[in-house]
């Protein structure tokens, strides 16, 4: 047990600065194997230029199925459902051809000087390409129609470091 704790602390020490080095809306877990469940924690350190965040919308990328967002006290949770591009195999021989494509927390208030996390649980389809990055575009909406859109996805050959408002992403690992 002691050894496990030390290992966990070491992993945490390695992960935390890496996750914190970015200034944008980011995912807490930056790598995940395909063909397994994934808990997407959206770390939200920003408002809209000083204004509080009142709505957070997350676009679920193709290949992330069986999505269930976690409710938050003080926020109204809604999902938008739609068809998937194709049918996915899920546990126990189930076939999924539609599901949640967008998650919306609204009616809350997260002041610019505070930090919060928004959580979505889902399953990464086994045939998602390992080694590539999967992006979850996020829109932060603020009173008066202002919005911060973390939706920029680097093009082939781009590092992503030069983007102003990069979408949070997770690097896909091979199926375990």
């Amino acid at each position, binding site marked *: *047990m*002691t050894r496990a*704790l030390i290992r*966990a*602390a070491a992993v*945490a020490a390695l992960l*935390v*600065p890496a*996750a*914190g*080095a*970015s*200034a944008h809306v980011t995912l807490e877990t930056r790598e995940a194997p395909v063909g397994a469940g994934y808990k997407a924690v959206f*770390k939200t*350190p*920003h*408002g809209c*230029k*000083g204004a509080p965040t009142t709505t957070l*919308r997350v*676009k679920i990328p193709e290949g992330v199925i069986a999505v269930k967002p976690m409710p938050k006290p003080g926020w109204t949770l809604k999902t938008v459902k739609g068809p998937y591009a194709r049918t996915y195999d899920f546990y126990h021989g189930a076939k999924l051809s539609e599901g949640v494509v967008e998650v919306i927390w609204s009616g809350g208030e997260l002041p*610019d000087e*505070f*930090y919060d996390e928004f959580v979505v649980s889902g399953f990464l389809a086994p045939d998602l390409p390992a080694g590539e990055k999967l992006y979850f*575009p996020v*829109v932060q909406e603020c009173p008066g129609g202002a919005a911060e*859109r973390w*939706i*920029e996805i680097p093009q082939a050959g781009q590092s992503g470091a030069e983007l102003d*408002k990069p979408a949070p992403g997770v690097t896909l690992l091979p199926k375990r």
Partner: protein
Amino acid sequence: MTGRRRLTLIAVAVRAAAAFGLLAGMIGAAHAHAALIRADPADGAVLAQAPARLTLTFNEPVAPLALRLVGPDGAAQALQAQADGAKVTIGLPAPLAAGAHLLSWRVASEDGHPIGGTTSFAIGAGAASPQASPTAKTGDAALAGAIWAARAALWLALLFGAGAAFARVWLADGQGADRMVFGLAALGLVAAPLSLGLQGLDALGLPLDALLRPEVWAAGGATTYVRTALLAGLALLAAAGSLVVRGGSAAGLATLGLLGVGAALAASGHAATAAPRWATLPAVAAHGVAAAVWAGALLVLATRFSRPALARFSRAAPATVAALVLAGTPLAVIQLGSMAALWGSDYGRLLLAKLGLVGVLLALAGWNRFRLTEPALAGEPAAQRRLGRIALAEAALVAAILGVAAGWRFTPPPRTFAAVEAAPAQVTLAASGLEALVTVARPRVGGSPMTIALRKAGGAPLDPKAVTLVLSRADAGLEPIRRDAARTGDGAWEVAEAPLAVAGRWRLRLDLLIDDFTLTRLDGELVVAP
């Protein structure tokens, strides 16, 4: 495991978890970038009177890093700022000229990460100050003088040094003129990097005393002039090298140095970049090589007269002059664009001055060729002495001509004005199956309305939710300028006034918000005329 031991472990676990949570929270909060909330005067404001100060308000405390004000004449100056928490106050110099001003700002967020932007404001014509920033003008004059001197010195070294090294092999069997060639090569090897640094100062709009700052050299290195400086250095090394080796290698190196003169002159500058380049590029190179042959031969004849040398030179001289004129005339015609520009523009007046000097030079050369060459070849000492003196005078005239030509650095050729007056600029951007046609009504310094027509690659209409124009001139030290485009009635988008405050090559980017979650960027370039 005993009960006590288990308790200790649980305590450690709880403490570790608490520390972890605290750490994660702290880092998450500490690494948020600052964002500009408000600028006063507001971005794009038109004011009746020049403001005394400009304030920028951020959402968190920041530390100012660099602030630069670019005036309507394109002159830039660095400003000082005072930060009070999240508020940065920048004292503006007085008097400020009427017209559009850009303030480029760069600050460090609390997390140390720098962010930047450019805000613009205009002072209405009615509020024009009587004297438009005289201090900026004097600073520019010193820099302009230095740029001119370095450039004239480089050309002098290049044409006379590489030319003399060639003429020495060609006319004087590889003898003499050693000290002169070495001296000129040394002058050129100092002037080449120096003029590159000055070019960097000019690009960033900094005064002379900033010459040693690394970003100045990086900016100089980013201009096309770096090719000229490099090739000039190589040509001079080859020329100097031809004095050290003997025989065939000396002739080879001297020829290489001579050709290097042409390559260096053709590698940058507005004559070599005029369309059609297939004609202007070789013309500039040929003009330079012919001038170097002539200049070098004059130097060798003036300092080391010999009858075989004079005989060889007088046979080749007409061809050299013909090459100079044949290569130079079309360049002048292309650059001028019209006869009236010959006396109606600074460029044309410099050309007239140069042609006047060339006329005197040709008269002296004719005198030498037709009156003195024959008696000198026949062995008359008086004619030989006079011929040498006149060759020296010719060399001095060539030096004066180079000085005049170096002045072209500051006068854009009339053809560029003509092109700008005639038509608004259009830039086509395309990426990800989308196309944008950006029309810039006045692609000149001072700002211009822009209209943006969008469509899909097949021609289908495209109706994004929002369009943002991002203009940047990183090489001029300007942070990106953002303008949200407004929808016009006919499905196009427009930006009422894009503040293009400095001439040169701007990077132009359109951010198209296709839907809430999809952003497409289109990139391009826009050339802004002075």
